[in-house]
């Protein structure tokens, strides 16, 4: 008897439900919502056995599924997860449930299409994390652009078309270079798209460097790293709340995941040679973007910049090549998934009521929305990396790893303690604290049960991961150790 194909289920359940919802059409909005929620919950349920059945002792791929897809080019439907990708499948399935609930009332037009877009994207994103075949990966990677493009372009704000096109072209441009790199590797490996085979493929330095930059263009845009980050603030500002949440929580992780799945293991020598370059860009993200975030006047833009700074920690952690750094970066990715989603959902809660994202339009929200203010306080604190929240764990580990690597890198990374607190809490102060600023704030109603449920679930995740991160890290030890050992060996 074949084992249950859990990975396929996490991919195809959401996609099939998405198509089903699409088939209902917008006339049955209530039915579309309910079906979407069932689909998202089933997707989440299908991802749970991955964690419970995961063997943390090995760095090998697990839940592997392999069948030919396009035999002529030796392209296979090849899936599997290790300790690195596992958590992202779970995170993605979890966030999907939340965004479906978040769009419950605030989306009134084309409900079915909206829900379908999120479900299909969820399946596609699981596909990205689970693919072990490079061409399959590429297809999922590119396919994820389409639903997000539509989400921004259809349900977005006034300037949505500019943002959607910028988002699409920016990321498409990067990934075309990756396609070239994939074809080159296909050729070099004697006609294989198996990522695991490529990791063992010996490569001279020059092609490694060229390939590194080809991958870099694709992944750095996604992360996004400075200086190819400017699409993100625009995309976030225009995207609907759910779109922002998924964009920040999951889509940004694709770039970082690409680095750790492709660049590092396939091109270890180039990674070492260019580590200084990557670290520099990461630190620019922490310091430069931290300062830019400080002066934003639009809440979503501010959180978008804060996302870039936090993702800087991820790329920094990868390229200091020690266990604290790499595990810290992975933890940071998961934590950022919770925290940034929560922050964007919080802004969404206010936007639904006030139709403004401008900090200056707010003030004294705590007076009318105390429950909301307390929850947002928690997320704000997580955003500045307060201990006992998930935000601390990753930052702490990366800073520890960086200080082990070099004093000044750690020093600059640690400035996030100051910048992160400054931009987050200053915004919180201007929006939430103070006397009631205007009539609109005075009329605000506190969050309802549905909004409370979403934020409370995220709060539990943030606190749980902060107080007891061990269950998150223990599944990744074997894989990270495997990766670090692999990286220590030259391919030249």
């Amino acid at each position, binding site marked *: 008897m074949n084992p249950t194909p859990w990975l396929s289920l996490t991919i195809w359940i959401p996609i099939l439900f998405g198509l089903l919802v699409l088939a209902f059409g917008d006339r049955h909005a209530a039915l579309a919502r309910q079906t979407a929620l069932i689909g998202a919950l089933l997707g989440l349920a299908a991802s749970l056995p991955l964690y419970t059945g995961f063997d943390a002792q090995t760095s090998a791929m697990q839940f592997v599924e392999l069948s030919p897809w396009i035999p002529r080019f030796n392209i296979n439907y090849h899936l599997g997860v290790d300790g690195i990708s596992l958590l992202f499948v779970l995170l993605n399935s979890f966030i999907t449930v939340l965004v479906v609930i978040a769009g419950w009332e605030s989306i009134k037009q084309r409900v079915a299409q909206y829900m379908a877009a999120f479900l299909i994207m969820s399946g596609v994103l699981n596909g990205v994390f689970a693919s072990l075949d490079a061409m399959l990966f590429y297809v999922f990677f590119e396919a994820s652009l389409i639903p997000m493009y539509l989400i921004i372009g259809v349900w977005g704000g006034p300037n949505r078309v500019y943002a959607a096109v910028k988002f699409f072209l920016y990321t498409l441009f990067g990934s075309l270079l990756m396609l070239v790199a994939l074809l080159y590797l296909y050729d070099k490996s004697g006609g294989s798209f198996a990522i695991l085979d490529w990791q063992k493929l010996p490569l001279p330095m020059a092609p490694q460097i060229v390939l590194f930059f080809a991958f870099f263009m694709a992944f750095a845009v996604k992360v996004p790293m400075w200086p190819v980050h400017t699409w993100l603030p625009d995309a976030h500002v225009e995207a609907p709340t759910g779109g922002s949440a998924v964009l920040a929580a999951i889509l940004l992780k694709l770039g970082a995941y690409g680095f750790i799945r492709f660049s590092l293991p396939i091109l270890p020598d180039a990674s070492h040679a260019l580590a200084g370059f990557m670290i520099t860009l990461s630190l620019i993200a922490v310091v430069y973007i931290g300062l830019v975030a400080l002066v934003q006047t639009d809440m979503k833009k501010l959180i978008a910049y804060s996302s870039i700074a936090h993702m800087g920690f991820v790329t920094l952690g990868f390229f200091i090549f020690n266990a604290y750094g790499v595990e810290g970066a992975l933890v940071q990715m998961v934590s950022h998934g919770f925290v940034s989603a929560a922050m964007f959902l919080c802004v969404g809660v206010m936007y639904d009521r006030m139709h403004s994202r401008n900090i200056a339009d707010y003030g004294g929200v705590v007076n009318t929305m105390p429950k909301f203010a307390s929850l947002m306080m928690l997320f704000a604190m997580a955003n500045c990396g307060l201990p006992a929240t998930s935000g601390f764990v990753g930052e702490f580990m990366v800073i520890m790893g960086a*200080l082990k690597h070099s004093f000044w890198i750690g020093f600059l990374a640690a400035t996030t303690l100051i910048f992160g607190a400054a931009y987050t809490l200053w915004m919180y102060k201007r929006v939430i604290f103070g006397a009631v600023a205007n009539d609109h704030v005075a009329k605000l109603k506190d969050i309802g049960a549905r909004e409370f449920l979403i934020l409370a679930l995220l709060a539990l995740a943030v606190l749980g991961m902060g107080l007891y991160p061990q269950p998150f890290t223990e599944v990744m030890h074997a894989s990270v150790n495997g990766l670090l050992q692999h990286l220590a060996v030259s391919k030249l």
Partner: protein
Amino acid sequence: MQQLYLLVPLAPLAGALIAGLGGRAIGRAGAHWVTIIGVTIAFFASVAIFLDVQNGNVYNGSVYTWLTSGETRFEIGFLIDRLSVLMMVVVSFVSLMVHIYTIGYMADDPGYQRFFAYISLFTFSMLMLVMSNNFVQLFFGWEAVGVVSYLLIGFWYTRPTAIYANLKAFLVNRVGDFGFLIGIGLILAHFGTLDYASVFAQVPGMVKTTVEIIPGVPWLLISVICIGLFIGAMGKSAQFPLHVWLPDSMEGPTPISALIHAATMVTAGIFMVSRMSPLFEMSDAALSFVLVIGGITAFFMALIAVVQYDIKRVIAYSTLSQLGYMTVALGASAYSVGMFHLMTHAFFKAVLFLGAGSVIIALHHEQDMRKMGGLRKYMPITYLTMLIGALANAGLPPFAGFFSKDSILEAVHLSHTPGAGFAYLMVLAGVFVGGLYSFRLIFYAFHGEERFRAQEAHGHDAGHGAHDEHGHGGHDHVPHESPWVVTLPLVLLAIPSIASGWTIGTVLYGGYFGSAIYISPEHEGLAEMAHEYHGVLTMMLHGLSSLPFWFALSGALVAWYLYIVNPALPGVLRQKFSFVVNILMEKYGFDRFNDWFFAGGARGIGRGLWKIGDVAIIDGLMVNGTARVVGWIGGLVRLFQSGYIYHYAFTMIIGVFVLLTLWFGRP
């Protein structure tokens, strides 16, 4: 016993959670009962553990593994020894007093339940901090007390000053934490563990290790680590130049000024350095740094207290100065003396703050001493207890502060660490100023003319917002003594403000701290002091003939002359020395400088990077520039696609002509 250890932090946490999450359900009385019960349990458990530790039962063990990464395990665990247990008793006792006091002080505040939840949460965090056996948990507690402090300073969140002050406090503390985290990171990088015991065990082997932070300049690793850690202490314990947040923190309700910003949280830095004595002892550079910073804080902050009119701010600057004393003691390797002063100060400063709070509610939230005066007739208990606090603060025998302060002076005097001479001058001069500002406060508020009547006409000052309506004393135009929930804690804290000093023989010279504090043989000034110590009474008698006593007394006498005998004189002096007074009123200009340089500078750079870097160069030039170039080329190409047949025909003919020319013209 292990269950009891867990009970100490968890009981206040449970209280905080119930009061915080179920505040509406359990009501106001429910909230104060549940938190007070929690803290009472913590207090009695701490006392039981205290007694147990006196029997030699030291505990060092882990509760759970927080995280493993690479080869390192990060644990949550407890180290229960004489150092931590002393802190546990002090923290839970002062916290209990403040909880009881709060029933009276916050009686009419709409945020009653929230306040109790916060102070219990604070108690939990502080206890976790002092009970920790490793640096991660220390940092947890460190940041957690910072957050609760942030929430409490901004408790009255509609006041612009309060929410400015809490943000400032958090950010300044974050600057300290930045150094602290770097210290911790260096420890992990070089020692491979963050467990206190394992780190201390490796210290002897690391004494000579150097690091080159600036290439070519080797520094002692231990010095760099200690200075990093101490920068953390400078933030939390408000040492110059990171002291700027503490005076502003007085925007919070008075009970937390007593609990957090005087007795417990701000002493976390002192405790931490004492805990790290095996590290600090190995670095003379770090100790000198500590001495100088402490000395500056002790003297210059005391000076500001002399010119303040806000009763809470006087006490706040006095706290800064006293924290400077403790820091000086640490720098002189007299950790036990620093801890001793921490303990006595916790009691007498809590009395002063809570007493000030009692006055403030009696006068309907008036904090300006110019509108007080003559209150001793109306508030005898408050007066007496505050007088005890002031006497202790000034360091006069037989009050607690005398013993601890005198020991600090003695220890610094005997220290040979570079910088000790400077620090000695600072703390000695500070004693005079301490006497002056302490008694200025007493005379100003409780003696002399009754100035509160003049402003009674204004009634409730509108500037204080909605939280003013406490209703204590009603509207009978005469302030009167606060209810028992306020005076009882005052009395209970006044007793140790006198008597806790008499334990000096045990705490300092009886080897109380034992192995919890390490002092290197070269720094044994304390042993010398132990030789000369012959009991409490002898020390007091000896004190009467020593310089500090006369300094403190003359400070008090000057205050008496200025504010009782010749009350017109201070005004004249202020005018005459307006230059100096202005510098002090401006607090040496730190706030202005920080606002301009750091806050303004960061915003300016941020705006520049955003507008020039992101908008103009990256988006304008690179992204949209690329799009424009593509569009421009497209526009050029479009010119050829006019849609007119004759254009195409003409172009084709030219093309054919060119091709033919090339074909036939080829060599």
